């Protein structure tokens, strides 16, 4: 192996990115205004967290009740499952570019587009989770005099939590990933570093990627922890 292939240049690429995160740097195109530094990194991270949480909330508000209702009724399986399959086929770059060109730029069109990506996995997994609840259990609940609403809230919903949370995690991954290209819709998230090489330099691009990856993993860990907390102890004891 030649010396050129040793880790040195590789290391330098990431070292520059670390420097970009922690201290401001000169940029050739901003006219003396410095870029990078913890303050800007945190500001863009915060924007990305805000729009992602907002979109996830909107997606849950729409998809959860629909999934619960149709799962309880046992109707609309083709739509619920088909939507989940169709949702995967949406190219995020085309979706955001389309929204920017047709609807306009800003937080509202962005959150709408992100929610569109979040709805299918939540809806499908909620529906499937509710359907998988043992019918005998539901009948037993009906037998002890629970109303349909009580059956949904006290029996079906808790037992479907693992499946629902799988859907929420899938939605969160889609949303965080797509929020990275939010600068295309005029919202300055961490993607601004990644897409703005001429402003931030290669160090900025790699730094943006590092922080985005960490943010995505934090979301994943938080939701995995939430899934554990929300799953009732009885269900956790069952071998999956």
């Amino acid at each position, binding site marked *: 192996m030649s010396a050129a292939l040793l880790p040195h*240049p*590789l290391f*330098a*690429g*990431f070292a520059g*990115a670390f420097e970009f995160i922690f201290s401001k740097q000169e940029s050739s195109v901003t006219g003396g205004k410095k870029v990078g530094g913890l303050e800007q990194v945190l500001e863009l991270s915060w924007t990305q967290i805000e729009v992602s949480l907002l979109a996830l909330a909107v997606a849950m508000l729409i998809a959860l009740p629909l999934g619960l209702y149709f799962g309880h009724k046992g109707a609309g399986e083709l739509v619920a499952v088909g939507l989940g*399959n169709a949702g*995967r*086929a*949406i*190219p*995020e*770059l*085309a*979706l955001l*570019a*389309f929204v*920017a*060109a*047709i609807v306009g730029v800003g937080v509202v069109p962005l959150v709408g587009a992100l929610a569109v990506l979040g709805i299918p996995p939540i809806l499908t997994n909620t529906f499937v989770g509710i359907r998988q609840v043992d019918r005998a259990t539901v009948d037993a609940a009906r037998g002890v005099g629970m109303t349909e609403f009580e059956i949904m809230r006290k029996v079906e919903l808790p037992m479907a939590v693992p499946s629902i949370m799988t859907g929420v995690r899938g939605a969160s*991954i889609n949303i*965080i*990933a797509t929020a*990275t*290209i939010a600068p*295309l819709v005029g919202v300055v998230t961490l*993607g601004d570093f*990644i*897409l703005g090489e001429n402003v931030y330099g*290669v160090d900025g*691009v*790699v730094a*943006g*990627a*590092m922080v*985005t*990856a960490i943010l*995505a*993993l934090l*979301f*994943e860990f938080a939701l995995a922890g939430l899934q554990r907390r929300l799953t009732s102890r009885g269900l956790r004891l069952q071998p999956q």
Partner: protein
Amino acid sequence: MNNPLAGIPLAAVGEVGEGFLKERTGETLPCQARPNHLFCADWASENLHRYGTPALQQFELVIISVLIGFVVAFAFALLAHRYHLLQWPLLAGTGLLFAIPSLAFFMLLLPITGRGRETAIIALSAYTLQIIYRNVMSGLANVPESAKDAARGMGLTENQILWKVELPLAVPEIIGGLRIATVSTVAIATLAVLAGGGGLGTQIYNGGNLTFPTAIILSGGIAILMALAFEAVFVLVQRLATPWRRAEAEATA
């Protein structure tokens, strides 16, 4: 008309362009020059040939990435099936790769592999690992114990049981994993342009010019059609690969 210049005397407008003048004189403006247009069928049919190469690039990206992802994930699953201690670390590890946004993954590879097709392929195949691994594992786990017992009774070794009983019975779920991985990868491969990997994204994100809806709809539409075509192929393969399912259905009918 939403023309912002409507109502202004022609002389005051001056040289705004031939198309505009034509419109004022009653002739039609080409669709793509009109404000607030949604889709220009004329432009689309004239320029459709431009999308052939990007579509082919995207197709190749998907095929190569899913193939690599399948080989690695399948090997992981066999390892985890043999050594149960590896199950959790492999699930968690592939889960981390799955959770990292592809765009961030591309750029994390930048100091190592630079921009190009390889970078896109590495990130895309890393993304598919979790989906395929999970499905192979759950396919193997769902093989009825009675089928394995019967095989054992016939004198098959554990290795023979794996290849002749467990894996064939897990085929539907393995193909299901491939289907989900492939369809998702078609969509995500549209981002490969940002890694310098080509694909349909080149027709959307060319020099940051994102404002031509016809090009966006065409590129996105072709990507969606490609994903649906893969979906259909996998549903067909799944039927062909599991003849006993049909036999069962006929027997119970």
